[in-house]
Structures are given as C-alpha cells and as structure tokens.
C-alpha cells in the first residue's frame, strides 16, 4: 500500500497508517493505476482538517480510531501484515460494529476525495470551477430539432380544453 505523506498532527503515525489503510479500502485505486485510492490521494488530510474544526466530530473519530486500534490488536497482526482480504474483512467489521463512526468516515472520505479538483478530469469533468468557463454544448440545429419534433406535432394538441 502506497501512502501519501500526511501533514496532519491530529493523529500519531500508527493511527494515521491505520486510517490510511481503511481509506484505501473505501475508495480503492483503479486497476490501471490511473485513479488513485483515497489513501494515495491524501484524504486523511481533509478528514483531519474537518475533524479539527468540530469537537463532536473529533470525539467521534478519537473513539472510532481507538476502537479500530483495539480491533487491530485483537487480530494479533500489524496493519502492515494485512492482506487485501484481511483489510476488507477488517473494514466490513468496522462498518457493522461502529455504524455512526463508519458512516461519518465514509461520507467524509467521499467529500474529501471528490472535492479535489484534480480528480474530476478522471471522470470527464473539468478541474476548474464550473463558472465562468462551464462546458461547451453545441446548439441544436433548428431544422434538426423540427425534424425530431415532427412526430410530436403530428399527434396534435394533448391538453384538455376547459
């Protein structure tokens, strides 16, 4: 698992490694390597900033990560020793056992990942704000539009006179 160094100071290195391990499962990388995982993309930084600005969220993540660390200890393995299948099982268990934390983590992961402008071109969108440039959409040729609408016109009016 390749991880982007994080600048966050909210969590220690073990917690950060564990969080990134989870993030890599939530949004995995593309098979061709062109689309990075949430971990590779540095979503941990986004989450860290979001959590640091909200005391309730900080408490939820502190407890959630503590639970995750305990769960890891119970497995008898280091996070670095997990196979992909073991990571999936670990995250699935977390989803079942820590629903509130997990849902918040998942939502935050999606927000952090897809709010990064550099990710949008991978799905065909511009990396720029939508305004003022927007997108080019060709105007419909009036004659072509007329041709397409001819069957609709031929059926006549379709509202009730009253």
């Amino acid at each position: 698992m390749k991880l982007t160094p994080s600048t966050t100071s909210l969590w220690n290195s073990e917690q950060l490694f564990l969080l990134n391990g989870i993030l890599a499962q939530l949004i995995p990388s593309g098979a061709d390597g062109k689309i990075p995982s949430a971990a590779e993309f540095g979503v941990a930084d986004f989450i860290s900033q979001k959590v640091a600005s909200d005391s309730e969220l900080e408490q939820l993540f502190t407890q959630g990560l503590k639970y995750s660390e305990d769960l890891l200890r119970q497995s008898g393995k280091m996070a670095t020793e997990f196979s992909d299948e073991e990571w999936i099982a670990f995250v699935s268990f977390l989803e079942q056992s820590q629903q509130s934390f997990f849902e918040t983590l998942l939502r935050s992961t999606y927000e952090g990942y897809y709010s990064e402008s550099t990710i949008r071109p991978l799905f065909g969108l511009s990396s720029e704000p939508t305004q003022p440039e927007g997108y080019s959409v060709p105007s419909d040729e009036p004659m072509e539009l007329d041709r397409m609408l001819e069957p609709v016109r031929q059926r006549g009016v379709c509202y009730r006179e009253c």
Partner: protein
Amino acid sequence: MKKTSVDVIIVGAGASGAAVAYALADLGLNILCLEQGNWIDRSDLPSTKKDYELHRYSKFSCDPNVRSLPQDYPINSENSPITPVNFNAVGGSTINYLGHWPRFHPSDFRVKTLDGVADDWPIDYETLAPYYDLNSKIMGVSGLPGNPSYPPYDIPLPPIPLGKLGNTLAKGFNELGWHWWPSDTSILSRAYQGRNPCVNAGTCDLGCASGAKASVDLTYWPQLLGKGVQLKTNCRVREITIQSNGKAGGVIYFDSDGQLQEQKADLVIMACNGVGTPRIMLNSRSKEFPDGIANRSGQLGKNLMFHPLSGVVGLFEEPMEGFKGPMACSIISQEFYETDPSRNFVRGYGLHGGRFTTPMTFALGGYGVDNLMPWGAEHRRQFDEIYPYCAGLTIVTEDLPLQSNTVTLDHELTDSDGIPAPRINYQVDENTQRMFVHGAARAEEALLAAGAKRIIASGGDVWWRAGWHLMGTARMGTDPENSVVNGWGQCHDVKNLFIVDGSIFVTSAAVNPTPTIQALALYVGDSIKKNQNLLF
C-alpha cells in the same frame, strides 16, 4: 420601536415578493420590502470555487437545516418523508432553484370540475396567461413555442441545447410515440438584457455566477430599486399586527442589529413561500385571531403540497455527459399529465429529462438523496462502469391537497430570534404512490427505448431533500369557510392583508411552480391596483 408608516409592506424579496412589487411600483406608493437574508455576492458563489461540490453539503445546501446560517430558520421535518428546501437572500429560492419553467395546464385550474377531486381555482389559465407572458419577458425565458401540450404562447429566447443526454432521451420518446418537448427554462440561451448566456456549468443549485439563470436579484430588483421600492435586508418578521378595526396594522420584525421594530403599513403582503408565510401568520395571534391571523377558516397551514419526486436511471453504451448543461432542464414529457380514466389514479405526472450529476453528489447518493454509495470494489465499479453512462428521468407527480398535510408551529424549536420553527406533518397519499408505480414503469420503457442497456435505479422512495415546491397552505377560494384568500390573494378575514406566494395554490399541478407563483403575484398586484376601493 420605530413606528413610521409606509403604504405597502412586502415580506420577502424572493420570486413572488419581487413580482408583486413590480406590479405596484408605478402607483407612486411608498413600498417597503423586508427580507431576512442579504444580497448575495455573485463573484463569491460556490460555482466559482474549485471545491464547489462541497458547498452543496454545507453553507450552500438547499436545506436550511444543513446551512444553519443566521438568516435561516430551522424546519422540523421529523414527521415527513420530504423536507422543505429554500434559500434566504434577496432573490429567495431563485438563487438556488434549477430554473425549469413549465406553466400550468388549463385543466390544472379545473380539477374538481374535470376530475372530481380537490377544488377548482377561482381563476383560470386565460386569466394568468398575460402575466405568464409578462413574467417570461422580465425573467428571460428560453424555450421552443408550439408545444402541443399547451395553448399557444410566445417565448422570448430559443431553447437551451438538449445536449447528448437530451437528444438520446428524445429518441426514446419518439420510438414510443410519446409526447416530449424541449424544456422551457428561466436560463438564457442567448445574451438578454445585459445578462450573459448559459455556459452549461451544470451547477445551477450553487448559484449562477454568469447570471444566465434568472434570479430576481438580477431581473426584478434592479428595476424595483430604480422605481423607488425600498428594500431592507437582514430583517426578520416575527408577526403581523392587527388593529382594533380588524385591519392589519403592519409587522413586527428584528432588524439587522437584532433590535425589535414595528413597521406600520396600510397594506401588508406576504411573500415568504408555502412554509414561511403560514409560519409567520400562525405566529400572529391576537384576541381576534387566536389561531393565527386571517385563520377563521382553520385552513391556514393545512393542505401542504410538495411535488414528491423519484427517479429512474438507465445505463447507456456511451458516456452521456450528464454533468453538462442546466441541471433540471433538457426535455419534458407530458404524455401522462392529464387524467386518463383507464389508469388507477387521477390527475397525472411529468417525466423530466434533466441532466445527471457531479461525482461527489453521485457518491453521496444523488441530488436530494442521502444514501451513500457502496465502498470498496463496488465503489470503483460504479464510478468506472456506471457514472459516465447514466441518464435518468424524474417522475414529477401532482400532489393533491390533504387537510392532514400541515405546517404548524414548533414552540420548542426556534430560530436565532426565538421565533417558533415550522413543523411539517406530511404523508404521500395513495393516489401519488400509484402514480409513482405507473411513472417508474413508463420511465423504464422510455429509457430502454432510448437505448439504455439496462435500468439501474427505478422509482423507490421519494427523495428526501426535494421539498422545493411549497404550496397550498393558505389556499385561494370563494368560500371564506374553507379558504384563506379570495381569487385575488386578499385574505377573507383581513381585507388589507394579501398573500402572493405558493401558499395560495389550490392544487399543485405536476410542474415546477415558480412561473405560476410569479404570474399569480403579478396578477394579484394588478388586481390590487384595480380594486383599491375594496382594500379597506
């Protein structure tokens, strides 16, 4: 408290408040509008920022309970499958609405006579038609004249491009021999009256920085200010006062410094939408009106109508470019709009071919929905194999009025000024549910006929964050026993109190209401001008 008097006070600077002010502005009256929000800074809208999608889930959410800005009031929607959405600013919800602009049908004003349900309106399509036309010119509407679903009318600008998605869907409707037409939109296809044309940004809900989408801060308000209409922002009305002679005396409001003020007026006009207006009126209690001002009928706050929405999504072979173009507008089908006795429901619905959405919103469940998509390999698959290839149809159903669907006051939940929040009690009725079943099946047919390989989402629950259309809570009628206002928006019980927003709708039709709200507001304003002798 200040007690200087004005001729007319309008509460709310959104779609309807601006329109009624326009109708009255040439009379030489002293008109004051109070707005709880402020002017928006167009250069600072989310659509100008790189992380624009994040704003949809925070300070620019359509949901006031998510935004929680100082100018917002909370809404208790615990007893509703749909939560009302809005925007509080000069321009109101035209700031973040999607600009779809269909008119009501003539039959929408005659539902009792034609279909035996609900009530007829005290006015008809022909009465509103000139006001629809006037409003189209002021707002700047794009579309294609000649839609056989309506009596003929003019449209100032040519239609916006259908785009790949709209063209694809249109082929499906043609294949089935069903009605479709390019959507009327309050979005400019060409430069118009100093405003720029649409750039197909696809983020209409995040405010239109280019100004192509008509919001009344751009269209009506510059003209109104030029005509001398006064506008005070960050002023939140708490209640309407009543005088000993039974007339409204004005309003009590919190000014921009949080100080309580009284504003006297000869005429009070409410324009705060179908939730905000009953909220203030229910909160305006007195000896004469212990259940809220102008509420002797007991109808104030009842008959709340939304347009329950649901969607069907098809998966196509080619990318549909669904993020390009105005969000809610491409084509509309009204094949199933009018009542057909062979169906198991009355009235009807529209199939709206809007665009698709942006990646974050897709991941979070779709626009108006909170339903996180799966994580892991399935997440990867949905983004790689599904997201680019989606096109959908939205089922927009008529919502019939029910006495049990209400806006009341929640005295436990208040805004920052201590004014009780609105509480929504709402259920989707059986007729509407039958429409959804029918509509989902027809939408599937249309998508498959358009070339969809398969259907990946069909109907299901109504969308939660989709209470855009707030109607019916102070309905029009000729009988003071079962309606709040008469046929020109005047409260039966208080002759100098008028309502001009969606509250006064008798029925909801099955189309976006803003063009009808504004046409009604212009009509009410014109009627006030013509009937000044009946005001007091």
